[in-house]
Structures are given as structure tokens and as C-alpha cells.
């Protein structure tokens, strides 16, 4: 029974591992190449910038804070900032956490896009390719099939993304270590001890675990459409909620659907440098505590119930629809 379910998940992973591995690997490659390019240009003394930042408003104080440089090497700029003062451990770990979470964000978006397409194809592609009757010749329930597709895409595949995020984080810390190697104000030791890499890993693992629950109405909906429609699952998946929101706006009484969809599309549980607009968390980073706090909200469990209902609908259609 359990070995059968693991077999199903393994099958899912084999089918989609290409995209689940290559998508985050591409993001990682872009970041690494961009950083490497800047470093090389800086070495060649070609990366020079003019900056004029007015931070007065952002700081929220009356004091004028202005940051102005002309024709300065990026390397000098970063270098200057790093050695500008004695860093306390708190300060250092705060900044590094921001960097750590910030660099994870593009990975979240790319993973989400991949996930949407994988889930929409999960119960549709095999009907289109007519392999569904082969899969159905095996002693597996349709509920197991649907669940294995959900579990693999939502809770197994992120491991690849998390590994890539971790690799890029280590790479960036190594670059920073290189920059501070000769400085007395900062030691390589203090960079790594304050990096929060392990904490960051826990944040990511727990974050993806809980995000899967938080976004279950979205994921359940995608699987439902994948099992139910005979053509163009992507358009259906988009059109129905859009029509619902439009209808709601037209009647003008409520915005329940709109805010529900908006809320559950947000990466509420994933570690980020700053939460998205409309987030109830204020202007701090999304941290481990925020992810875990979601677990005790009514919203999350209402969403889980709605998501489960969509999944049940998906199982229902999976039983009878064998063709497109």
C-alpha cells in the first residue's frame, strides 16, 4: 500500500524531474553569472556607477539621509559599505538574513510557474496522450493517483529548488568572504557564523511545507481543472476564477472571492525579504515564526477544506473521464 504510493510519487518525479531541476538551476545560473560578471567587470575597473539615493522618506525620520557617489567602482562601493563601521553580530546576521531571503525570492516565483503547468497537465496530458488506460490497468485507486501528483509536485519537488537556493546562498557568502578577507573590521568567521544558513534551510523546508497547505485551494483547483476539462486547461483554470471575480465586482456586494484568491496566491509561508502587498504581517521579512503562525489561522484551514473539496472533484472526474 505505502510502497505503491511511493512508487506513484517516484513515477511523478521521473516524469517532471527535468523541469523541477532545470528551472531552479537556471535561476541559480543567472544569479551566479550576474555576480561573476560584476566581479570581473569590477576587476577590469569597468563597473562604475553614479548613485544619488534619497533615503529620507524611506527612513521615516525628518533627518535628511542622502547617499551620493559619482563614478565609483561597484567593488569599492560594496567594500566601503562592508568596512564602513564595526558590525555587531545582530546587525550582521540581520543583513545576511535579508540577503539570504531576498535571493530565494526569484526561486519561489519560478517554482510557482513550473508548478502551475505541472499540476494543470497532471491529469490532462495522459488523457491527451491516451496513456491513461495503461496507468489505470494497475491496481491503484484514483484517489492515490491524484494525491501522488499533488504530493510530488507540492512537497517533494521543492527539495530541488531549496537545494539550488542553498547553493546560491553559499556562493554569495563565499564572494562576501573573499571581499572581506583582507579587512580587519569583518572576519570571514563572523560572516559564516552569522549567515544563518542552517536556520535559512529550516525556514525554507518549513516554509514550503506550510505554503503547500496555504495554497491548497489553488493547487486543488488546478488539479480539478486538469481532470475535468477536455480542452485548454490553462484557459479554464484562469477563466472561471476571473469570471467569478468580475461577476462579484459587477454585483458589487462582496469581494470575498477576489480577496480569497488574492490571499491564497500570495507566498505567505515562504521566507522572503519583504512580504507582499496586503499581507497582514507588516513591513518585516517573512520568517519561520510567520510561517508557523499560519498553521493556527482559520484562513489556512478553510483553504485546506476548499482545496480538499477540489481534489475530491478531481478524483471524481478521474474515475470516468479517460479521453479528451
Amino acid at each position, binding site marked *: 500500500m505505502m510502497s505503491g504510493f511511493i*512508487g506513484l510519487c517516484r513515477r511523478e518525479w521521473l*516524469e517532471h524531474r527535468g523541469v523541477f531541476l532545470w528551472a531552479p538551476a537556471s535561476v541559480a545560473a543567472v544569479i551566479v553569472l550576474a555576480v561573476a560578471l560584476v566581479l570581473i567587470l569590477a576587476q577590469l575597473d569597468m563597473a562604475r556607477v553614479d548613485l544619488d539615493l534619497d533615503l529620507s522618506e524611506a527612513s521615516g525620520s525628518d533627518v535628511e539621509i542622502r547617499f551620493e557617489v559619482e563614478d565609483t567602482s561597484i567593488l569599492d562601493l560594496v567594500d566601503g559599505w562592508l568596512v564602513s563601521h564595526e558590525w555587531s553580530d545582530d546587525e550582521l546576521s540581520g543583513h545576511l538574513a535579508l540577503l539570504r531571503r531576498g535571493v530565494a525570492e526569484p526561486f519561489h516565483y519560478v517554482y510557482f510557474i513550473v508548478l502551475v503547468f505541472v499540476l494543470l497537465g497532471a491529469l490532462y496530458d495522459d488523457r491527451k*496522450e491516451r*496513456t491513461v488506460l*495503461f496507468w489505470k490497468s494497475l491496481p*491503484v485507486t484514483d484517489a492515490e493517483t491524484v494525491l501522488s501528483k499533488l504530493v510530488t509536485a507540492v512537497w517533494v519537488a521543492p527539495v530541488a529548488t531549496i537545494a539550488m537556493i542553498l547553493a546560491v546562498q553559499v556562493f554569495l557568502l563565499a564572494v562576501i568572504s573573499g571581499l572581506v578577507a583582507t579587512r580587519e573590521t569583518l572576519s570571514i568567521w563572523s560572516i559564516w557564523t552569522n549567515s544563518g544558513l542552517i536556520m535559512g534551510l529550516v525556514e525554507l523546508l518549513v516554509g514550503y511545507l506550510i505554503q503547500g497547505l496555504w495554497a491548497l485551494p489553488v493547487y486543488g483547483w488546478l488539479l480539478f481543472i486538469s481532470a475535468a476539462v477536455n480542452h485548454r486547461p490553462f484557459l479554464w483554470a484562469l477563466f472561471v476564477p476571473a469570471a467569478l471575480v468580475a461577476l462579484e465586482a459587477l454585483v458589487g456586494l462582496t469581494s470575498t472571492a477576489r480577496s480569497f484568491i488574492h490571499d491564497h496566491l500570495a507566498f505567505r509561508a515562504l521566507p522572503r525579504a519583504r512580504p507582499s502587498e496586503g499581507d497582514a504581517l507588516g513591513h518585516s521579512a517573512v520568517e519561520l515564526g510567520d510561517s508557523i503562525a499560519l498553521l493556527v489561522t482559520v484562513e489556512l484551514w478553510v483553504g485546506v477544506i476548499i482545496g480538499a473539496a477540489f481534489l475530491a472533484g478531481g478524483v471524481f472526474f478521474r474515475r470516468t473521464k479517460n479521453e479528451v
Partner: protein
Amino acid sequence: MSVVLAQGLTKQFGDVRALDGFDLTVEAGQIVGLIGPNGSGKTTALKSILGLSRLDGGELEVFGLDPFKQRPDLMRRTAYIADTGIMPRWMRIRDLLAFVASVNPAFDRRTAEAALADTEIRPDKKVGMLSKGMTVQLHLAIVLAVNAELLVLDEPTLGLDILYRQRFYDALLNDYFAEQRAIVVTTHEVREIEHILTHVVFIDQGRTRLHLGTDELAAGFAKVVANAERSDALRAMNPLSERRSLHGREFIFRDASRQALADHGEVSTPSLPELFTAVMEER
């Protein structure tokens, strides 16, 4: 207990009555050929037996189970091929075998691997790299490695060359078939499976037209070839069908005395294709 017990099955697709009172019984130790023209309801009948589609009416039990509601239980004892040429193209053959083994306890991976060793199919290849014929071979190798009590084959040899087709049916009869097993097979090439069947079922317009043991063929049916002068006398004996042939006129009779027929021409036992044509023309 019968393996398959179907009575008065009905299934409607829009205006089309795909099944319209279809009956079938299959017992262990039988190889049943389900034979009918295109669109006669063969595939719909098989899909209901396999729990792949819901029926509108009638009574259906396979191993005493409701196929639609208890499909996973049914699939523990059943193997089938619905679309021989179609397998997941992205999958490596080795992974495919490992997957089937992981979800189906009745699948014997070594048997499948041994069968594949006789072919050009290498385990590290992807299914998409196989030719159509090789894909069918792979599919058959997998399904014959399932220790099933009921094997259902829908046009299993479509796209195979004649040599491999004969080898497949020989293997099916000699290596796979056993007392406790039942096989249901559909094909449009009746000739090809004639010699392995224990029973035939003719289906037309969703209804069973004839259900017969192949050993009852000689007792139940007779073919007479006669010249034109004798034809009127034979027509008066209420034949199932009449057709012109090179040797004169061919009549096929059901439940007629062979002695009485022998007065008018040469009597023999009709072949399955001849009988099929006769039964279909009767309607």
C-alpha cells in the same frame, strides 16, 4: 463462480446506444473471442468489465465485484491491454518495469525482463525511441508478466507483423493460458485467433448475437455448397444466410439435420468468419 457475469448491460452516449442489452459469461479456463464490426460496442463492453466506464443499466459482476466501484480490487486480479501501441514515451523501460513492480504485486518483473531479452528492446531506452511494433511487444511483455486470473486484450496485435502475431498467440496459448485463468480478446482478424478460442461471442449494435463454444460449432451449424438447381429446396429449409461463391451457392444453417442437408449438396462446418458473416447478415 463465473469470472464475468454480465446481463442486459446498457450504455448510452448521447443518441447512440453503445450497449443495448449485452450479455456475457466468462468462466475460468475459457478463452473468449469478442467479435463484432466497428462501432458494435466491443470496446464499451470491455471498458465496463474493466471498471473504466459507468453503466446505465444491467447487472455486471467480475469476480463478484462491481468493476466500477471496486476497480483497484479488480485490477489486483486482472490485466488488460486497451491501446497496445500506447505507452508513456518519456519513460525509460527500466523505470517503467520498476514502477509497475512497485504498484502491482502480481507483476513478475523477471518474467517481463526475460521476455524482453528475446527482443531488440533494451532496458535503458526510452519508450519514445521504440518503433510501433516494439512498443506493442513491450506492452505485451508487461501484461503477460502479470499473474492475473482475467486477461482482457482489445485488439492486442494491431500494428504487429504476421510473424510476431503468431508467436504472440502461441505464447498466449502455451505459456500463459491455464485452467484457472480466463482470457477475453477482441480482434477484427477473426482468422488469427480462431484456433485458440474456446468460446466466441458475436456482438452487434450493443447486443449479443451469438454465444457459443467453439466445440459446439459443428453440432450447431452447417454449411452447404449447392448448385443452382438445388438452391430452392435449401432456401425452403430456412437458412441463416446465403451467398454466391466460386463453387455455387453457400448456405449456412443453424440447428439443421446434416443428413437432410446432405441430399442437396456438400455439407461442412462453417469457419468462424463464415459464421460471423452469416449471423451479421441475419439481422
